[in-house]
């Protein structure tokens, strides 16, 4: 039993290790972002801050918006009151007063109007200033955006370059690992072939001969028949289980095939006990 499990265990371990290495190696490449240092890439390492610094050096900072110019208030002061003679006429004075009052009122009204006008002018000026400032801000923003765009584009270009190189490297690596896999498969096949050329093939031929002698072919077992049988044997060659797989024959053929496996029991033993295989896949494919 131990002799039989050792090669199987070894084989499983070997395959497992191979798969593990392949899977791990492969995933190392696939994990973003690519660890650039691990790859043989002919590229400069570029960081975001370095990119920003470089950008600042070649492009002056965007103009700050100018503070709004404060225009002097264009409000006219009311004219000073005109002095009058006391006696000359109270009426005149009164009239004067009235006139003055009127004038004052008028002046006041005028002043109010002028104030309002001044205010409007001021407001207009403020709006204009505001618009100018906004325009300036917009322009500045546009400039900044353009700069950012350029920066982004440049960064993207650099990144793409880096990624392309990384991808190429990953592809090369994948191809290399595929080649490795193929090489190990080939090695396995060569090993199989080597085994098949030796004691294994001798043993298989002995089993084949024994089952062929044990197979009583029913008349309906024509050429073109193809049936598979999974035969389980135990050390010593006793057939302990027979399971019919696909079979294009009739019931009698199927039965004869199962019977053949049991009739052939016990099966011959391999010259090298370590070659013993518990499970046989027997294909019935008569050629005549």
């Amino acid at each position, binding site marked *: 039993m131990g002799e039989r499990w050792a090669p*199987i265990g070894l*084989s*499983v371990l070997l*395959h497992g290790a*191979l*798969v593990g290495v*392949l*899977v791990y190696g*492969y*995933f190392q490449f*696939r*994990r973003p972002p690519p660890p650039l240092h691990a790859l043989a890439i002919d590229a400069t390492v570029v960081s975001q801050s370095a990119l920003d610094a470089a950008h600042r050096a070649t492009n002056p900072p965007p103009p700050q918006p100018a503070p709004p110019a404060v225009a002097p208030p264009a409000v006219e002061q009311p004219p000073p009151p005109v002095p009058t003679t006391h006696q000359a006429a109270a009426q005149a004075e009164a009239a004067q007063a009235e006139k003055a009052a009127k004038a004052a009122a008028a002046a006041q009204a005028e002043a109010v109007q002028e104030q309002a006008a001044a205010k409007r002018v001021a407001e207009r000026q403020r709006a204009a200033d505001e618009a100018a400032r906004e325009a300036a801000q917009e322009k500045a923003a546009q400039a900044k955006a353009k700069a950012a765009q350029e920066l982004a584009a440049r960064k993207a270009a650099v990144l793409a370059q880096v990624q392309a190189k990384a991808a190429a490297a990953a592809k090369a690596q994948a191809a290399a690992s595929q080649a490795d*896999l193929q090489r190990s*498969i080939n090695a*396995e096949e060569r090993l*199989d072939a080597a085994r098949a050329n030796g004691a*294994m093939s001798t*043993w*298989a031929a002995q*089993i*084949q001969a024994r*089952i*062929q*002698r*044990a*197979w*009583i*072919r*029913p*008349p*309906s*077992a024509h050429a073109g028949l193809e049936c598979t049988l999974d035969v389980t044997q135990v050390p010593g060659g006793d057939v302990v289980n*027979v399971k019919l797989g696909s079979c294009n024959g*009739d*019931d*009698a*053929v199927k*039965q*004869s095939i*199962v*019977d*053949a496996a*049991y*009739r052939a029991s016990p099966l011959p033993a391999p010259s090298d006990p370590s070659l013993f*295989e518990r*499970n*046989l*896949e*027997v*294909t*019935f*494919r*008569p*050629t*005549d």
Partner: protein
Amino acid sequence: MIKELPLRARWYAVLLCFAVLPGLASAQLKIEITSGVTDPVPVAIVPFASTGGADNGVDVAEVIQSDLEGSGRFKAMARSAMTSTPSRAQDVQMATWKAAGNDYVVVGRVTALGGGQVAVDFELLNALTGQQLANPRFTGTAAAVRDAAHRCSDVIYEKILGIRGAFATRIAYVSVEGSPPAQRYQLVVADADGANARVILESHLPIMSPAWSPDGQWLAYVSFENKRSSIYVQQVSTGTRRLVSGRAGINGAPAWSPDGHKLLVTLGGSAGTPNLYVLDLGTQQLTRLTEGPSIDTEGVYAADGQSVYFTSDRSGGPQIYRIGLEPGAKPRRVSFESAYNARPRVSPDGTKLAMVTQDGANYRIAVQDLASGTERILSHGRLDASPSFAPNGAMIIFSGIEGGHSILQRVSVDGQTSQRLRADSADVREPVWAPFAH
């Protein structure tokens, strides 16, 4: 860990696993079987139990054993080697029978059912796998026990070989006793193994060419009882018969159409040479099939009923030809292997043609594969004649000369096995195997 991987990476992981799996599976050793043997299947047929003489003196197991061994496909265990004689499946120690080299074990019993009826039950067991393959019951009168035994043989044969058994069928043949002029001709019907022979017609003048109707109820034959050849059809069970062709000249070699409504016959007017005709049994209408000065005879329908094989000397010696039934059809030669080929008979599946062929100084039974044209000589006698296929196509019955007598023999279509049926003192000739009873 695998959850952190992108979906595609997980896919690659799965694919890689699959790529490696076949490597692990190759631990299974692969064997290819390209040939087998045609050894007989070893089988133990345990003597059947019988209560109160229910078996009517028939040793059922012996009949089965004789049937199976006679087919060449089975080898039965000697009774003397049996250490027990179970009659039921549950009493069979499978390992013991397997250890004795048997692949299959047959156990059974005959029981009286009352009212003169008996039942024959058996179990067919696979000693290798331990499975029970069949457990049929056949009932009938005590006189039918032997027939039931043949039916048991049919079941066993079919279960193990995949071909319907033909043991419970019948044969007919002509028996001739005495020497001229005091000869006695008998038309005999018997079981396929030659047992249960009974005479259905007797004459002091020749009886020839019996032919079974497709339903197995009637025999057509040629009788010279009226001092010249005439063709009759006779119901086997009742003996009822009628004359269907008593024309001037030759009336010979009747053969039934597959539908049973017509007879192919050879007729030769007193002036002319024999030619083939189709006789409608319902209307008595006669249709000529072949023309010319050559002898055309021994016609037989192809399996599909669309054409006819016959013997003709149109090329000099006797050879087999085939002609379509449509008007104006021209015969085409079928046999080429020898200077003499005659008495064609078509296998039930229509794929083979049996004939008598000249093999050096001998006449033997040959079978031609109709698709390939290849021929194979099956018999080894000096003067073998009258081949007839079993209804399952597995064997051919024929007559041969042994010890100066004509006897009945059988050969498997693959030529592997042959045997003689028990012969009486009489000459037995022209055996014809009946179709399956419907």
